[in-house]
């Protein structure tokens, strides 16, 4: 079982200046599964997620301690190629954020960065990504229209397609449905379960039902610490920790 875990995190701390946002995390994330991170606001779950593709680098005061391995390579090693890391570990954000360009250009963005210029190849990548993101049928006649003109749910699927077009091994989802209506949310949840076959998914969510519905594993975080991590069924049916039980039964949060 050598390559079963795509991320291996140990003794991992994240600081913002002097404030410790994530402390002493040990967490292994299995390949081609959906892992959900839940917990109340400010518990550090997004911070942890953003450490996995080093998006926290954008916050000047942030620094980390400990070990976080992606495919056996330390993410925070000096020699790690952040650009390649982000290519392989894509991200979808809370608020759909397509670029102010056409649907096609949004999806072709990543491949173009990697120097793919051939129109036929790009067309193929774009179509594949849109099909996988379950958006092709809706946009195939308006590939040249602005991505920002789509509905909220469509925009979020466009962002998923944009991420898929870079052929990532992992996609990190930072509360991807919290800005969407229930129907779009359901649509995206189905999509994630479809994607799981080929891509590892780590999803941060406020919505416990969502975690229960779609994830294989669930991590519960509270004030920067990982309280409990395990099989989603176990966490929701038979949590070991009292805090976890109180949170998932809605007694706080």
């Amino acid at each position, binding site marked *: 079982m050598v390559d079963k875990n795509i991320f291996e995190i140990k003794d991992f701390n994240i600081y913002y200046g002097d404030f410790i946002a994530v402390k002493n995390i040990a967490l292994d994330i299995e390949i081609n599964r959906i892992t959900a991170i839940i917990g109340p606001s400010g518990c550090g779950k997004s911070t942890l997620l953003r450490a996995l593709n080093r998006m926290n680098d954008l916050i000047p005061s942030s620094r980390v301690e400990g070990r976080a391995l992606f495919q056996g390579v330390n993410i925070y090693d000096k020699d790690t190629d952040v650009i390649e890391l982000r290519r392989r570990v*894509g991200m979808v954000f809370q608020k759909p*954020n397509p*670029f102010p360009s056409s649907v096609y250009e949004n999806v072709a*963005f*990543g491949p173009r*960065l990697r120097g793919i210029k051939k129109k036929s190849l790009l067309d193929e990548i774009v179509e594949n990504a849109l099909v996988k993101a379950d958006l092709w049928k809706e946009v195939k006649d308006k590939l040249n229209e602005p991505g920002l003109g789509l509905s909220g749910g469509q925009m979020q699927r466009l962002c998923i397609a944009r*991420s898929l077009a*870079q052929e990532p091994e992992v996609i990190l989802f930072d509360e991807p449905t919290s800005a969407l209506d229930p129907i779009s949310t359901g649509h995206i949840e189905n999509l994630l379960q479809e994607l799981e076959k080929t891509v590892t998914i780590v999803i941060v969510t406020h919505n416990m039902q969502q975690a229960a519905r779609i994830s294989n594993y669930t991590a519960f975080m509270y004030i920067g610490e990982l309280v409990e991590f395990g099989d989603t069924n176990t966490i929701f049916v038979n949590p070991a920790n009292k805090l976890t039980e109180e949170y998932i039964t809605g007694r706080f949060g």
Partner: protein
Amino acid sequence: MEKIHKPFGLVRRKKFNLKQGFFLSLMRTFGFTGAITLFIILFFVAYYGLQVLSWDFITQPPLEAMTQGGIFPVIMGTVLLTMLCMIFVIPIGVTTAIFLAEYSKPGFMLTAVMMSMYTLAGVPSVVFGLFGLGIFVVALNFGMSLLAGSLTLAIMVLPYIISTSEEALKAVPFSFREASLACGATKWQTIRKVVLPTAMPGILTGAILGTAKVSGETAPIMFTAAAFFTPGIPKSLFEPVMALPYHIYVLATAGTHIEETRPIQYGTALVLILLVFSMNLLGIILRSRQRKKRSW
């Protein structure tokens, strides 16, 4: 409506209203002063200017010691000066703005650039003229020329271009940069492919408004580029040019036919005002259109 308010406290309210009304009308009057002044200037210039404004006036060169004919080379001089100025200033201004908005960190370098920019913006335009004379005309030996004049104008309008471009860059939402970086783009790729294209309409609007500012300037070109008279449009960068603001100045003060050229002076002023107005209008329309279009 009136009847409802009538029975109660009428006297007191009226006293109060009188005072308030007085100051309100005072404020109105002062407020209108600006509008009235503009109207008077426009009326004045248009009234006299329209008497000479014709197709021939804008397409013919001056004739008979500038007492007859048109102002074609003058218009072309101003157009060439401002266009060339923009060609110089936009690359420098936008690059500086990218540095300030995207790369600079608080510290000596940033403080130095910002302070210089503010100071530069406050320097009187005649000082730029003298500077251009010293550097471009004399030291670099460009002579009184289109090149020296447009470079001088470029330096003068640089702070404006930098600050409008910087504002346009900073208005690009963080979420776009985030999305681009998450796609595996480098910082420079993010700037070039996402931030700059998104900011471009704002940058161009700033450039157009900057052009409008520059085209009316007299002092920076009077020692560096502007000629009393040239027979046609310049054939090289090293030839002096006529320019609208300087032409008005020359005709109104320095000629031997000041009275005879009065109509031409007003005509030239009218053309200059129309030019500046139409550029400002274009800039304002562009800006309001992109504000409406912005959907993030």
